[in-house]
């Protein structure tokens, strides 16, 4: 276990910003803290770097206890690298000097070799003498990653590193950075509010909400087996429809009986909300279940339809775009849910 956080809490003058968070990251893994703004993810990251103190709990990096229980290692002695939101490259230093900044204590030859290797890794050979402002945003981004990696930190932290990039550049850059980290076997923790960035980079993703870690899992499980309503809502698209539990493997809804493993704690007969993802609804003209198209959104290869059911509940449905239906039309639908996700019913839930 490379990074270990046990029951960490951070509070400013009595207001809890991070509450009782525990997580573990293995060596060489890339983790991600995902959540809406103000959920405490950046504060937690800064606590790992040593810029914030814990009010409770402890943090260990590479088996070394760095925060909590009366122990506090300052950032300059933590051996963590950090890539900042606005990159924070040193504007008056060349790219090579930026990358080599943290390489004191190495002799000139080794230092030069390390810089050359990192420059090659980020694909900027020959640009050593440039200044940061002469590079594009994506190139600066990679320089910032290389600078943080140069002293071979035990842990690399990335604070919303792609937030200033164009949306379509973001995912590509996230994958490039992931490959660079993989190549060097770096253990890293990323903070973002963009789930696609998280899916593109991370092995393990923690969804944070109101300072708590709602779920720590891989992307597939977050989407298909969300631990609570917030995660279900935050990750991907979907709608909730009312249902009642029949037995441990099925539930009755307006779309018929849905099969799949019901989570523990749901007694037969109790009222639940069933999570229906757009890919769970299949367009099938032969089906006995009909739905009215309320809205449609063109997504290129697909249409995302918002469908109204008999009891005025709504679901989303992804249909190939050559099945072009008009708003108000009735279409036949069928449910194909592999992962039945349900939560005890809330009043006024839709």
């Amino acid at each position, binding site marked *: 276990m490379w990074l270990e956080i046990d029951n960490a809490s951070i509070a400013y003058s009595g207001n809890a910003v991070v509450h009782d968070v525990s997580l573990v990251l293995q060596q060489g893994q890339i983790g991600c803290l995902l959540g809406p703004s103000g959920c405490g993810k950046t504060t937690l990251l800064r606590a790992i*770097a040593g*810029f914030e103190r814990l009010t409770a709990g402890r943090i260990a990096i590479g088996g070394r206890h760095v925060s909590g229980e009366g122990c506090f290692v300052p*950032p*300059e002695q933590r051996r963590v690298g*950090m890539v*900042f939101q*606005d990159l924070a490259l040193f504007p008056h230093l060349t790219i090579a000097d930026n990358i080599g*900044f943290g390489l004191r204590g190495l002799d000139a030859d080794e230092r030069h070799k390390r810089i050359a290797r990192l420059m090659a890794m980020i694909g900027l050979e020959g640009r050593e003498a440039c200044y940061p402002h002469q590079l594009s945003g994506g190139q600066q981004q990679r320089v910032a990653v290389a*600078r943080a990696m140069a002293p071979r930190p035990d842990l690399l932290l990335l604070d919303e590193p792609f937030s200033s990039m164009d949306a379509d550049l973001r995912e590509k850059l996230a994958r490039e950075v992931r490959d660079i980290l993989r190549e060097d076997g770096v253990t890293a923790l990323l903070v973002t509010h963009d789930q696609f960035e998280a899916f593109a980079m991370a092995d393990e993703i923690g969804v944070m909400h109101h300072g708590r870690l709602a779920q720590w899992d891989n992307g597939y499980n977050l989407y298909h087996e969300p631990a609570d309503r917030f995660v279900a809502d935050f990750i991907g698209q979907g709608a909730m429809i009312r249902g009642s539990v029949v037995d441990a493997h099925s539930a009755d809804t307006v779309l018929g009986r849905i099969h799949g493993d019901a989570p523990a704690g749901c007694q037969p007969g109790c009222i639940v909300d069933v999570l229906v993802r757009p890919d769970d609804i299949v367009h099938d003209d032969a089906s006995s279940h009909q739905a009215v198209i309320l809205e449609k959104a063109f997504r290129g290869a697909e249409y995302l339809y918002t469908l109204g059911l008999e009891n005025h509940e709504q679901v989303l449905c992804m249909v190939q775009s050559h099945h072009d239906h008009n708003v108000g039309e009735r279409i036949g639908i069928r449910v194909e849910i592999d992962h039945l996700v349900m939560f005890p019913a809330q009043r006024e839930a839709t």
Partner: protein
Amino acid sequence: MAEAAALLWREGRLRAVGAWTVDGLGAQPPGLPPGAAVGAVDAAALAALDTAGALWLLRLSEQAGGVAIEGLAGARQELLERVRESRARMAPARPVRDEEGILPTTGRQVVARLERAHAFLAFIGETTVVAARLVRRPGRMPWREVLGLIHSAGVAALPIVGLLAFLIGVVIAYQGGQQLKLYGANIFIVELVALTTLRELGPLIAAIIVAGRTGSAWTAQIGTMQVREEVDALRTLGISPVERLVLPRLLALLIALPLLTVFADLLGVFGGMLIAWLVLGVSLSDFIARFPEVVYPSAFLVGVGKAPFFAAIIALVGCFEGFRVSGGAESVGRHTTLSVVQAIFLVIVADALFSVLFSWLNL
């Protein structure tokens, strides 16, 4: 539902009709017709009247220039009079003040200042510890940067320091000379100019100009780095910001300010010398001949000896305020101002303390 209140305007008379009650008046009670000359308000045809209606009638009659309200009788007239009386007695509502009293404000201010002083002391302590560590490994000091800082803080300040010191010397000699002339003691201008410049004005002028020029610039530099998270970046690269940012500046100013003080001394005395010659008729050779007789080396050393202390104050305050920047550009501006004010304030306080100390020591 009560009939709605309304105002009809005919031939200078306003007729109030309908129910002048809370319900009848509703959220938007009828107002005066714009531009109408109102002679009187006729309230004879009212369907109903309550306290709210009476109050509104009174307001309207006031707005119309204090016209009479006519046509009311009996209980209604009585109600109107009651409301009129109560209104006159009613003091205008005092605006609610949510400011806290003087004691909590004072307390908070005191605590904030103590906290600041504590943080500054801690900063001086940290700088001392890091400096002691660096003395053992001088190779870690970025010497080229120190040279650059000496240039920007010292060499580049020579013209302005020289000019101001010269002018101050001129002013002192001129003002003092006018008094000395009365007694025919012109030759004493040498003591006056030399001692004030060497002991006090030279070091003070140099320190104040450097605080305004360099201390503020360093606050802005470090503050901007703080805003751009470059200070945090330094720390995660394993480099102490105190070692990398504060010590070079402190060292540079410890070297530059005493030299600037010597320069200010020279130019100040030169200015005085010119005035002594032109206004008081003390020839340059007389001035120079008398100079070593009356000015002891201790006067010069006392002045220059204060300069490193002033340099430390300016560099430490400048860097400290830079590190206290948090948030955005506006915080940089605020701390830059604070840095100049505090540095000059502390320099003058230190100078006063030195005066007391030197008089005890008979220097």
